[in-house]
């Protein structure tokens, strides 16, 4: 917490109560927060960003996904034997995969296979959808991916939402989708889309689907809210699906004419960098997007590509 003004006795008691309350909560839910020290140290370590492009006619999306991870040194660098991995795709809308309103099922399938090949004990697909979850799972193809790969598809039900301390600059306590924080490794798997308020919805905005409660009130301060969430969730890696993107009428789209084909995947361990790279596909610079600016400001990551090791994979 940043204290910029003299604190009154009342405020001090209040914040003490809040902290002790959240500690009690965290013990109730059996969660163990990482100590802040080592977590910050991780982001200081040199980041990487890998761009995968499918240029050949009829290339395999699954193959491209595998190649991107190979370029990053293999999945074993991120997922260890016996890990429980939570994947956070964007399955918000009950729309067909070709309308690009939801994460590409082929990318998701390849990613889950890679996790299992790296020795993951369990892979869970976790998203709090906007449309009815059962329909979203069926229509977006997530259901058949789960069936094929043996991953768990977690239904976003009330008993799995628990109030947690976000420790954000804007958000204090919020309902969080528990399997995301219970996992050993967390992979963010958003799809890149146009958005009415945040201009684009990429990796950082995808965390809106990791919370519940009055989440539609977050739009009143969207940039800070989603950066707070991204800082809370801290995924191991972010893989942005930009095979097909929605360039207008987002984030739900609904018409093939809203979709642009980009055949691109972006993999990074830096949430801000991944978003900055994906924003370029829409023609936006990092300085035009509030959440990228705030993310850089609060140390979530960097939009300066020179600070990262960069690679490109072309299929």
């Amino acid at each position, binding site marked *: 917490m940043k204290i910029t003004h003299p604190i009154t006795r009342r405020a001090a008691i209040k914040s003490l109560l809040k902290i002790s309350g959240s500690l009690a909560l965290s*013990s*109730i*839910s*059996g969660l163990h927060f990482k100590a802040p020290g080592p977590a910050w140290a991780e982001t200081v370590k040199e980041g990487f960003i890998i761009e995968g492009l499918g240029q050949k006619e009829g290339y395999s999306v699954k193959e491209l996904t595998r190649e991107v991870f190979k370029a990053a040194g293999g999945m074993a660098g991120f997922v260890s034997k016996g890990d429980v991995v939570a994947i956070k795709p964007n399955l918000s*809308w*009950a*729309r*067909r*995969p*070709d309308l690009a309103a939801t994460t590409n*099922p082929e990318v998701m399938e390849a990613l889950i296979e890679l996790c299992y090949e790296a020795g993951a004990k*369990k892979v*869970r697909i976790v998203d709090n959808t*906007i*449309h*009815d979850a*059962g*329909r979203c*799972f*069926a*229509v977006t*193809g997530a*259901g*058949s991916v*789960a*069936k094929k790969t043996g991953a*768990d*598809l*977690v*239904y976003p*039900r*009330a*008993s*799995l939402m628990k109030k947690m301390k976000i420790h954000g600059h804007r958000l204090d306590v919020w309902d969080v989708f528990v*399997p995301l924080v219970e996992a050993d490794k967390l992979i963010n798997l958003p799809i890149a889309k146009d*958005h*009415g*308020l945040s201009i684009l919805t990429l990796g950082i905005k995808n965390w809106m689907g990791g919370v519940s409660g*009055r989440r*539609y*009130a977050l*739009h*009143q*301060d*969207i940039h800070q809210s989603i950066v707070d969430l991204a800082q809370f969730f801290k995924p191991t890696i972010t893989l942005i699906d930009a095979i097909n993107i929605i360039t*207008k*009428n987002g*984030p*739900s*789209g*609904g*018409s093939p*004419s*809203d979709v642009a084909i980009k055949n691109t995947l972006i993999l990074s361990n830096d949430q801000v960098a991944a978003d900055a790279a994906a924003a370029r596909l829409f023609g936006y610079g990092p300085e035009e997007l509030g959440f990228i600016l705030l993310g850089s400001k609060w140390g979530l990551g960097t939009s300066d590509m020179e600070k990262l090791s960069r690679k490109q994979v072309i299929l």
Partner: protein
Amino acid sequence: MESRLPMDTVVDYSSVISSDLDLKIDYPVRFFFQLDPLVGISSLLSGHKLIKGFMWAAGLLFLTLFLGRIFCGFICPLGTIHHVISWFRPSLKGERMVKANQKTPSQRIKYFLLITIIVGALVGLNLSGLMDPISLLFRSLALTVFPGLGVGINGIFDWMAASDVKILNLMSYSGEILAAPLFGYGYKSYQTAWFIGLLFLLILFLNRIRPRFWCRVLCPLGALLGLFSRFSILRLEKYQDKCTNCKVCTRVCQGAASPEPGSQWENSECLMCFNCFDSCPESALSFKFKWSSPVLNKKPDMSRRAVLAGLLAGVSIPLLGRLDGRVYKVSDPRLIRPPGSLPEKGFLNLCQRCGLCMKVCPTNVINPTISEAGMAGFWTPHLVMIQGYCEYTCTLCGNVCPTGAIEEFSVKDKIERPIRIGSAYVDRGRCLPWSGNGPCIVCEEHCPTSPKAIYFRKEPVKGPEGQVTEVQLPYVDLKKCLGCGICEYKCPVKGRPAIRVISAGESRSLENQILL
């Protein structure tokens, strides 16, 4: 916690991806309605429509001509429930039960109800759904019994999930997965569900006063089948000489159909349960097929009074039902019918108020009406947008409607025709950006049409402290709005949202329109 893949989505995932197939319910949920001749006949008389699968009902009537009310004794699910309750620890014993099973004039009430329904249907209002046993049972189960159990069960699971005992958490997760296919996740709610449930309990309780009270006294379908069993060839034969007058047959007779030798068998009251023949210690009773008999079965006892009262009620209720102006003058702005619904008059001619559409709706938006559709439309379906919304690519309500009051439609119809159910308007006094209380785009974000029916204009707005900020102000393009209500449902202004849907603009009505 090991596996949380829910089995509640009733679809085969693999068939859906990368095809345009609509998700459908494959179970024969409409079968009992197709078998129910009262549903078929009332739809034919009022809606001038042979419902899908009417042949089943015709077949049943034909069967009844020969075999009597075997539907009541062997097929009717509500009758089965009544039978079980009446049989399990009956409240009356011995002589008192014999007395309770004497035929009474109250058994004419069902003929009165039947005539009311038939005449009402002719005049133009389908009332059968209120009293038809199949509709009544489906409505009661779908809107009260299952959701009620669901509320209880999910309440226990939520309590377990919130507890700090780890084993209870794990048990609740796996329990939820087991319970979800039947009860769903979360808490369902339906307007007037308590009343529907109370009536159901009352009807079940009446079995304590008289066995199968509903079937004997109230069931209009039973009355209809009773009329058709006039010439039944399956008859109760009585052997007076063997009878010792022990009255066991009357004690076990659930239809009060005078089985004992010495009295005339009430053929149209007989539920064909065969209890009497089964329990007679002297074999003085038996059911036999008899083709030509000099004596016809006994005429159904419906009395002139019941017929006249039925005629009067049947004519007046539909007319009274139109006096509140819902059909001819103007529709209630909150009367938002499910997509694919017929125009109001045609809708009331077919809707059985059975609750299938409400049960199948994935967002729980479809609810029974109270006053929105007037007296004539009590318990018919309408959408309450603060409780859910109409999902853009969902077609399930049209898929399950047994009579076609909601016509079957495809996703393509819904989007491309398009099927409008109403239109949205912004309440600028409550809206966050319009009232200067901050930026918000939730309605636009959720708007499912392409291009979106909700669009923005960037304009400076004065905030509470007089500071001017540029915000995106939402507007509704009425030409594109379908009235799905997701904007109203997701609006962060709770209670009474800042964007709301009214029925005006619904494509089923020529009058209830806004634009030229």
